[in-house]
């Protein structure tokens, strides 16, 4: 269920409708195009998964920060200047050798914007939302992630304003890496829970 919208030339009906509505709202005096530019710029250039990767890498290298993140992720993130819209109530859930976590919003597309940015298309799609709660292992398999049978899967359905962040396990072979180096291994998908963090080999 992906849909074309305005990738065509000449402009699609969707593109024309969007332009018409923006123009009407500007004319009504209720929308300032500069605010739209600012919002788009924020999520295209400032707020994205590098924020979450920083929190995770920091937790990998600083046990006190790891504890703080699991205890109160909103406060821990704020302590390093991360927070805001759609992340007012953050909860971090940690993958371990025994437990694997997966985040979904079955009702819409709730997602922790300040740490991950805006959600990818698949996260918003009906097939992901439908299957993540009923058959999470098949979802993980679609991403090439195969867990041992004895790993317990915990699925978090974001039905409230609580936003969930998965902290993946630190990959082997990263002893002595700096926080900045470790951040490069922490993918967006690993913080949703569909993949592990990258191995140093894969990142090389």
């Amino acid at each position: 269920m992906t849909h074309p919208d305005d990738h065509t030339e000449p402009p699609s009906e969707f593109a024309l409708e969007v332009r018409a509505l923006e123009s009407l709202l500007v004319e009504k005096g209720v929308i300032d195009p500069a605010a739209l530019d600012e919002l788009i710029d924020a999520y295209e250039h400032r707020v994205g998964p590098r924020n979450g990767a920083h929190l995770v890498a920091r937790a990998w290298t600083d046990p006190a920060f790891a504890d703080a993140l699991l205890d109160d992720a909103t406060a821990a993130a704020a302590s390093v200047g991360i927070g805001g819209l759609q992340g007012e109530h953050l909860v971090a859930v940690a993958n371990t050798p025994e437990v694997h976590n997966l985040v979904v919003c079955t009702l819409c597309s709730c997602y922790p914007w300040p740490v991950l940015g805006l959600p990818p298309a698949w996260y918003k799609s009906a097939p992901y939302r439908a299957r993540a709660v009923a058959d999470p292992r098949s979802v993980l398999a679609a991403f090439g992630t195969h867990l041992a049978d004895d790993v317990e899967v915990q699925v978090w359905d974001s039905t409230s304003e609580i936003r969930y962040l998965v902290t993946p396990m630190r990959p082997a072979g990263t002893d002595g890496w700096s926080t900045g180096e470790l951040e490069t291994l922490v993918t967006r998908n690993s913080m949703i829970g569909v993949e592990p963090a990258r191995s140093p080999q894969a990142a090389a």
Partner: protein
Amino acid sequence: MNGLHDVGGMHGLGRLVPDTGDEAVFGSRSQARVFALTIAAGALGRWSLDASRHARERLGAVDQLRLGYFERWLAGLTLQLRESGVVTADELASGNADGPAPEEVVARRLTAERAGRAVERGRRSDLEAASAPRFTPGQRVRVRPHATPGQTRAVRYAQGRFGEVRVHHGCHVFPDRNARGERVGEHLYGVAFDARELWGGSATGHTVHVDLWEPYLEEAP
């Protein structure tokens, strides 16, 4: 409402298509504009986030499947603008304003500076509790059957099912009433459900955690 937005556990919705992680934030400029228009129009204060969700849900089953994600946002936003009287049906049809919006609406127009602050600060949804929580972690509860046409976050797949309260998240704005313009709080709980209680004996062994407000829950016998 018991609509097609509430897809948890449904079959037949098509293939899951993973990505590489390198795609653009927005699929197109139009998608980006719809995203920003929705946030900026929300800042006018005429409706809540829960009302916006419900507006998109009210589009009906056909549009849930037919329209793309930001097409639904556009349709939901258009519905709310019209229902709230910010624009009229005639203005939407012609594309031309019959006149400016009322002063009190224009006064809340989001500026670039306020937009930046909104992104950085957000708005918490927890409120002072008026009463003590009724449930405690470890307690077994049942999700009440609930099928009104209004907004709710009591996912259909958990209704009528038994789970265990794991955490009390405090008192949070209650969506069912917030969507109707009443910003009141109810205790919110993280409730864990065994997959077999949700999907039957053949389900893989996993746990599903759902955040549920106190009015959605009753004590398990």
